[in-house]
């Protein structure tokens, strides 16, 4: 029986925008890289995302935001993770995020990695493997 440890990632679309092309392409790519991807669907509140992340015991949460609400949603999710004693769950994201805002989110620790349009999925996978190195060993 193959029950080796698998990387579990929650792919979520918080907020109201429904553009899920990127989220789904990433979900498929992560699956093809051998990960278990939990998908919560569209129009999720930060509370729903965090609760799902906890129940699913994921290693990281990937947020896709194209509605410009990134500066409110990322901090909110980190805050909720902390409140629930789950700050060890890593947060990454992608979408339409201006560079200034990206730097701000990364500097404040509201995201560990952010990927903009044009990113190849191999880069995301490599980043996850790198970030997971310590946990898997």
């Amino acid at each position, binding site marked *: *029986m*193959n*029950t*080796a*440890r*698998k990387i*579990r990632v929650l792919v979520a679309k918080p907020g109201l925008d429904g553009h899920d092309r990127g989220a789904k392409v990433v*979900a*498929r790519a*992560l*699956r*093809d*890289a*051998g*990960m*278990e*991807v*939990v*998908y*919560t*669907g569209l129009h*999720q509140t930060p*509370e*729903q995302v965090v*609760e*799902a992340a*906890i*129940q*699913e*015991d994921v290693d990281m949460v990937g947020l896709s935001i194209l509605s410009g609400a990134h500066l409110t949603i990322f901090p909110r999710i980190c805050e909720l993770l902390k409140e*629930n*004693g*789950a700050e060890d769950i890593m947060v990454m994201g992608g979408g339409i995020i201006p560079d200034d805002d990206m730097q701000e989110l990364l500097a404040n620790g509201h995201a560990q990695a952010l990927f903009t349009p044009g990113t190849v999925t191999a880069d995301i996978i490599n980043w996850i493997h790198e970030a997971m190195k310590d946990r898997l060993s």
Partner: protein
Amino acid sequence: MYDKVIEGVLNKDRRMVARAISLIENNDNGRTKILSEIYPHTGNAYVIGITGAPGAGKSSLVDCLLSTLRQQGLSVGVIAVDPTSPFTGGAILGDRIRMQEHALDKEVFIRSMGTRGSLGGLSRATKEAVQVLDAAGKDVIIIETVGVGQSEVDIIKYADTTIVVLTPAGGDSVQTIKAGIMEIADIFIVNKSDLPGADRTASEISMMLDLGGSLREWRPSIVRTITLDGSGITDMHKAIFEHRDFLENSGHLQKVRKERIRRDIIDLIEYRIKSTVWEQISGSEEFDLLTNQIMSRETDPYTAAAQILTGINLDKCKV
């Protein structure tokens, strides 16, 4: 660390419940410790299995059922199983999408699991995840199967009530549905009952039950549902509790659960012996040699098996 997890499970700490399931699923060293220490606290939850072909609407039915069970004040755990890709080992677990409205309800715990190479069957990990949720005080636990392969039949090994979901779609007659699956149902759901052919599907099930004779004391109920507008959901809920009452009043529940424990013990013994044997023979020169000798017909598998067994140390599986 395991003590903290165990304590957390018993205290209904969601984070620790989730962690316990992961440790079990990953076959972590602490698996046996966790399971045996929570065991005294299990046996209180009522387990419902939902099976049926992909696309039959299982997740939507679970979502509806969550609502009615919660209205009744029961706390509910859900284990939703999706297939793991045999090629990459990865999986997309998307059953939650339909249930996210319940995500913030602290009395609901939803966990998605991949089959992880357990040949499409309900993995042992699923059964053990049920125990974790049981120990964490869930009144009802719903298992949603993959809907293909052996899992459909396996479900009765874990579920007190097994629900088989069918749809009238595609004009498939009940006759063509795989033998075996029809026998496991305690309740039949004809979902998407607004589609043409729903009447026929329901009456075919009924006819088939008549043909099956009265071997079972419980005649499975047939419920028609439309998850889009919620019709038939109360009937489904009622049917589940009728079946539960039947099991309890007839003494079947005790019988079934006792049988389940016996099988669990045998399974565990089997599993431990198997892995002990495998540990000792895999990669051994003797094993390779005998395999070659069988190939060239110098010896036969029966003699070889007997010979290998004489050299196996079974003491190792006793600890």
